C-alpha cells in the first residue's frame, strides 16, 4: 500500500532533512530546496493526521472475495 508507507517515509525523510540541516552539511543552494521539500512533507504528515481515505467497498471486496 503506497499510501500508508508514505507517512512513515515522509516523517523519516523529514527528520533526515532536519538533521542534515541541523548538522549544517547543507549549502545555501540546497537549503531552499530542502526547506521546500520539508514543508511539503510536513503538510503530508499533518494532512495524514486529519484525514483517512479508506474505502469501505474495497475492504468488503477483500473480505468477501
Amino acid at each position, binding site marked *: *500500500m503506497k499510501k*500508508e508507507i508514505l*507517512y*512513515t517515509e515522509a*516523517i523519516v525523510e*523529514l*527528520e533526515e*532533512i*532536519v538533521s542534515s*540541516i*541541523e548538522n*549544517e552539511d*547543507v549549502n*545555501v543552494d540546497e*537549503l531552499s530546496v530542502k*526547506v521546500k521539500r*520539508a514543508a511539503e512533507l*510536513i503538510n503530508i*504528515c*499533518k494532512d*495524514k*493526521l*486529519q*484525514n*483517512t481515505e*479508506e474505502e*469501505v467497498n*474495497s*475492504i468488503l471486496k*477483500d*473480505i468477501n*472475495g
Partner: protein
Amino acid sequence: MPELTEEHSPKKYYSLLELTKSIESVIKKTYSRSYWIKAEIAKLNFYPKSGHCYPDLVEKENGVVLAQIRATIWAGHFNDISSKFLSIAKEPLSDGMTVLIRTSVSFHPVYGLGLHISDIEPSFTLGEMAKEKIISIEKLKKEGIFNSNKNLIPELLLQRIAIISVDTSKGYHDFLQIIDDNEWGYKFYHMLFPAILQGESAISSITEQLNRIKKAKSHFDVVIIIRGGGGDVGLSSYDNYKLAKAVALFPLPIVTGIGHATNETVVELVANINKITPTDVGYYLIQKFHNFSVRIQDAQKLLVDKSKQISSNEKLKLRNICSSFKNSTDGLIYNNRIKLNSAVHELNHKLKSQLSEQDSVIHQIGKRLSASVKVSMLSNSMLLSSLSDKLRLLEPKNILKRGYSITTKDGKTIVNSSDLQANDIVETQTYEGSFRSKVQSIEKQKQILNTKK
C-alpha cells in the same frame, strides 16, 4: 422382580416394564451412593424457563469420544451450583468445560440411564483452566510463536483500525467516543468485526473474524479486541491455545482491551500490546497520533530555527568576504594606479626624447634641403641669365636696329601680302620712327612689297 431366566419352550416373556424395572434395581443396587466424576461438558443444555439443566457429559481422547452420558441438574440444585461456580471459577458453567461433578447414577424405565448431578467443584475447573493456560503458553513458546505478534513493529500512525467487539458493548462505545470525538481533530478509520467475546464460542467467533480481517489486512494498521462491562467473568476462552495462536500469528499488531483487573490471559500475553480496558486502548491510539504530531512539530521548529541560522551565517560570511574584497581591491587599484602613473611618465619621457630625435632629423633634412636648393638656385640663375642674353638678341628693337621693319594694318602685323589689297593704308615701324603708306599693287609669289616713302 425375580431374576430373569432364559426359557426356551414354551416361549416365556417379560414386559418391557419388567425388563426396565429389573435394570433399574440392578443399577440401584450396584451404584447405591454418589460419586465424584471428572467429565467434560460437551453441551450444557440449560433451559432457563424450567431452570433445569441437562448437560451432555463426555470423555475425549485426542478428539475421539470415549464415553458419553446424559446428566440432569434439577432447577433446585442448579441455582446454587452455578452461582457458587461463577463466584469461584470466574466463569459460568459452559460448553467445553472440564468439571468435577458429584453424581448418582439412575435408571428410569422411561427416561433411561442418566446421571443426577448434586454438586460441582469449581476449584477443580479453576485448576483445569489454569492448567490449560499453562499448557497453552508452553505450547506457544515451544513453537516459537509466543512473541510473534509482540515483536511486530506497529506503524507510526495506527489510523485504520479493525475492531473485534460487540456493537452493544459498553466498551466498544466508550472506545469510539474517545477516538471519534478527540479534541485534536485526529481522524481514525474503523470497522467493526462483530464477535462473541466470552465463553467457549468466543474462540471460534474471534478466530473467524481474525481470518476475515486477514483477508483485508492491507486496509488496516492494527486490530483491537475490546470488551467492556463483562467483569472478570467468561475469560477462560482467552487462555485457549487455538485462539492465542491465531492472535500470536496475526500479521497485524493486535491491541487488547478485554477489561479485567486480574491475571492476564494468554491472548493478552501474546498480543502486541495489552491495554486492559477499551478506553485505555483509545488513549493509546491517540497517544500514537500525539507522538507523530510532536515529531512533526519538532522537525518544523528545528527546520525554521536552523534555516534562519544558516542564512544569517551565510550573510555574515558574505559580508566578511565583501569587506575583505573591498580591501584587497582598493590595494590592487592603488598599486595599479602607481604602475599606470609611472608608465605614463615613462611614455611621456620616451615620447619627448623620440620627438627631439625626430626634430633633429628633420632639422638635418631641412639643412640639407636648403643647401641643395641654394645650389640648384645658383645653377638655375646662371641658366636664366644666359637665356635672357639670348632673348635680348631676339628682341624686335634689336632686329629693327639691323634694318628690319614691321608693317601693320589696323594694328595687325602683315606677314603675307595676300592679306592686303590695293589702296590699303599700312603703317611701317622702323628702329627709329614709323611711316604710313598706300599700297599700289600686290605682287604675289615671293616678291617683296614695293613701298613708298
